[in-house]
């Protein structure tokens, strides 16, 4: 392994962060690491915007009556919360931030295959986001993020087409990122880095990219058809004009189901990296974990109509989709078991990233099991379109994706910024997130089973206690999310300088400086070892804070 010639406790003189200070050098960069930071800023902004809307929802739901805002306003608030979180946060968060930063580093490349298309991806995201902001500021949209017809084409009088266009453009950002990753992994691996030596984060992002490339165009065309129907009164989905509203649902969910695997797979990749590093051993069953990512991507395309069990599809179609939906559960379970087995005879550290990894496993297990409950059609009839589903997807999206992301952000923060974050505050935040999250969303499982439907501005009084618990949890959760914002920013200036490899982790990204130079490696590495060769790497404690 190459060791850096730079002393461990000094930041390198010239790295990607200080290689050019002008605004132009950032806004016209083609360096994948800078683009990752551009995404970090913009995605974080949208996260807090979506979170703000979530706060409004929880505040309204403190009381059974609709007394904080009008019904129409509430409908817009939950729609925009959903659209922002799905399209502007969950889909890009791990691939566009951590993926963009790490994929070339992890495979020993100088950059992604198409750096200019990478920059284009970011600009498309920004254009889409700006368009969506404009849509919100000029009246918003109230169709729900799922914009079912005929309400979205004929019933709603809000900015449906504009919102659709924003999502369409964001979709292209996603497609280009996925395309870039696939070509990069196929064509630009360092010499000696065979597929079976790739880090699991790469396998995960590769599988994700397959879904991005194959699935996103379908929602793009669906949006086009909805827009065309709405603008020109063509009858494609409206029965009054000869169309079929169920066709919309099929086309919509054909993308939107695989989309949730776009969200979770990269986070699962992060968790693999974290468990390997903080247990100091290769992930148990590496090959199975790698292939399970591909399996999830493939099976994920076969199950879309499990969102439509009560929509009016035939009884037999429902049974087929129920059966197939269980098939996706197997590779996910395989991952959870392998991660757990990795802990056996490991040497386990409780650093913050590991705490997030533990949190992920626990919460994803609950979220995934409730997903199996939803796949069980006899149960789904009762709980679909209720808060049970809301709780399920928040468990996997927030308890899963977001915790994986936060774990990864903390793990690679020293590599990205050259600084360590304050471990005490980080552990506290992780705890607040875990407790706040469960308090927010566990009551919602109960709410759903006793019958509270989703997207409800007002509700019968007997549901109030659980709603109040949920809102209380949300306030704790909010603090848990705000703290990292503060201390991560603080660490940029006051955090101790991190060396090239403060965790003693395996992986090519740790064999270059923190932060890395613009072209990543002084010399292209030649890989002769398996992934996660922790038996060859001596353990290392997190470096004690060093005087600046």
């Amino acid at each position, binding site marked *: 392994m190459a060791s850096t010639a730079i002393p461990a406790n000094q930041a390198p003189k010239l790295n990607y962060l200080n290689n050019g200070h002008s605004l132009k050098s950032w806004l016209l960069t083609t360096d994948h690491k800078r683009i990752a930071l551009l995404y970090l800023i913009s995605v974080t902004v949208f996260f807090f915007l979506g979170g703000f809307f979530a706060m409004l929802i929880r505040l309204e739901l403190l009381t059974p009556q609709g007394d904080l805002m009008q019904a129409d306003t509430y409908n817009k608030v939950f729609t925009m919360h959903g659209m922002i979180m799905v399209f502007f946060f969950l889909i890009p968060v791990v691939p566009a931030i951590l993926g963009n930063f790490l994929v070339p580093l992890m495979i020993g490349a100088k950059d992604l295959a198409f750096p200019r298309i990478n920059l284009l991806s970011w600009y498309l995201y920004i254009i889409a986001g700006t368009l969506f902001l404009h849509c919100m500021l000029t009246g918003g949209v109230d169709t729900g993020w799922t914009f079912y017809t005929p309400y979205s084409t004929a019933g709603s009088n809000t900015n449906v087409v504009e919102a659709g266009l924003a999502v369409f453009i964001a979709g292209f950002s996603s497609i280009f990122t996925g395309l870039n990753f696939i070509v990069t992994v196929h064509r630009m691996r360092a010499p000696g880095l065979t597929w079976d030596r790739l880090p699991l984060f790469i396998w995960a992002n590769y599988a994700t990219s397959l879904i991005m490339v194959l699935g996103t165009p379908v929602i793009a065309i669906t949006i086009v058809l909805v827009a065309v129907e709405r603008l020109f009164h063509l009858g494609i989905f409206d029965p009054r004009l000869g169309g079929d509203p169920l066709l919309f649902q099929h086309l919509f969910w054909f993308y939107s189901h695989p989309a949730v695997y776009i969200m979770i797979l990269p986070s699962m990749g992060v968790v693999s990296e974290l468990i390997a590093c903080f247990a100091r051993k290769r992930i148990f*069953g590496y090959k199975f974990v790698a292939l399970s990512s591909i399996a999830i991507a493939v099976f994920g395309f076969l199950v879309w109509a499990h969102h439509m069990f009560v929509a009016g599809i035939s009884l037999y179609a429902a049974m087929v989709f129920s059966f197939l939906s269980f098939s996706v559960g197997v590779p996910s379970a395989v991952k959870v078991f392998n991660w757990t087995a990795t802990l056996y005879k490991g040497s386990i550290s409780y650093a913050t990233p590991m705490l997030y990894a533990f949190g992920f496993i626990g919460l994803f297990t609950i979220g995934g099991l409730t997903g199996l409950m939803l796949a069980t059609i006899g*149960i789904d009839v009762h709980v*679909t379109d209720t808060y049970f589903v809301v709780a399920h997807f928040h468990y996997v999206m927030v308890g899963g994706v977001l915790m994986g992301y936060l774990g990864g952000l903390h793990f690679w923060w020293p590599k990205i910024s050259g600084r360590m974050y304050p471990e005490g505050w980080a552990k506290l935040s992780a705890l607040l997130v875990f407790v706040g999250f469960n308090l927010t969303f566990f009551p919602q499982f109960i709410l759903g089973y006793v019958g509270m439907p989703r997207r409800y501005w007002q509700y019968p009084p007997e549901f109030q206690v659980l709603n109040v618990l949920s809102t209380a949890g949300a306030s704790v959760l909010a603090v848990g999310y705000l703290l990292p914002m503060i201390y991560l920013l603080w660490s940029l200036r006051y955090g101790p300088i991190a060396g090239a490899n403060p965790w003693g982790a395996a992986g090519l990204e740790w064999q270059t400086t923190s932060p890395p130079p613009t072209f990543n490696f002084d010399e292209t590495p030649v890989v002769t070892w398996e992934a996660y060769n922790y038996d060859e790497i001596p353990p290392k404690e997190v470096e004690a804070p060093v005087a600046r």
Partner: protein
Amino acid sequence: MASQVDALYIYLLLVSGVMTALIFVAITVLAIKYRRVPGRDAQPIEGSTLLEIAWSIIPLFVMMTFFIWGAVIYFKERTPPADSTEVYVVAKQWMWKIEHMEGQREINELHVPTGQNIKLIMTSQDVIHSFFVPAFRIKQDVLPGRYTTAWFKATKPGRYHLFCAEYCGTQHSGMGGDIVVMEPQDYAQWMAGGPSAPLQDTGKQLFTSLGCATCHRFDVQGRGPNLTGVYSKPVLLEDGRMVIADENYVRESILNPTAKIVNGFKPVMPTFQGIVSDEQLNALVAYVKSLSQPPTGTAGLQNQPAASPAQPQNMQVQ
């Protein structure tokens, strides 16, 4: 039915709880037992194909029990019994309009007697809604342009929430109501209390006033098929297809006659799209159904089984 759904749910909860507990305990124990101590290194362990197969196959088998049990219940949920009393439901933004076969109309409330299978035949006037009664564990989306059905049997008198469960605009959360379940004698009293004409009689009147009887004659062969006994039987179309004359077929024949031409007839029927309302359509469909033997969906009171003894505490809907 509700107790069956709950039983499956409890099974799922137990299995999930055990699974979750296993993972939580395993992680906690392993994380503590193998925490980092100086002097002990991690042991590199590749994996175990046997374990991988085991923990793929066993969960798959467990999941198959979920699937089969769920499918069995779902099949029952989607198959209304043949002797069900029919009730027509028209959803619109933002209310539920109910029509009993006897002609009784209700808004946002559905009165039913205990112990009677009720089959709901539902359509929407505008956007997609969903008929959700948590206490009965039933839910079915209600679509514009076609009928969807759901069924239940209430066993305990009381008022039970009715919610709309598919987002439909401004007053989606206000589009609620109650299912009012009454003892059979109370229900009979309620039913007698309002002015009404049975739904199929209304349909019969419309059949004449709209001119249907001109072509669909019962005495001689007219320009349209004789509708006696047509409902729920197979129909041969002129392009060779065979379809079953169900509610959706009758509805479509009125609104879009050229979609399916009966074999041997000319496509001369005009469309009634925009001429008949959803309620009138329901009445016509009920009338056509009444032309088939044995009477289906007529006022169910005379066919009711003897009232069952007092039910246990928790609501049971079969």
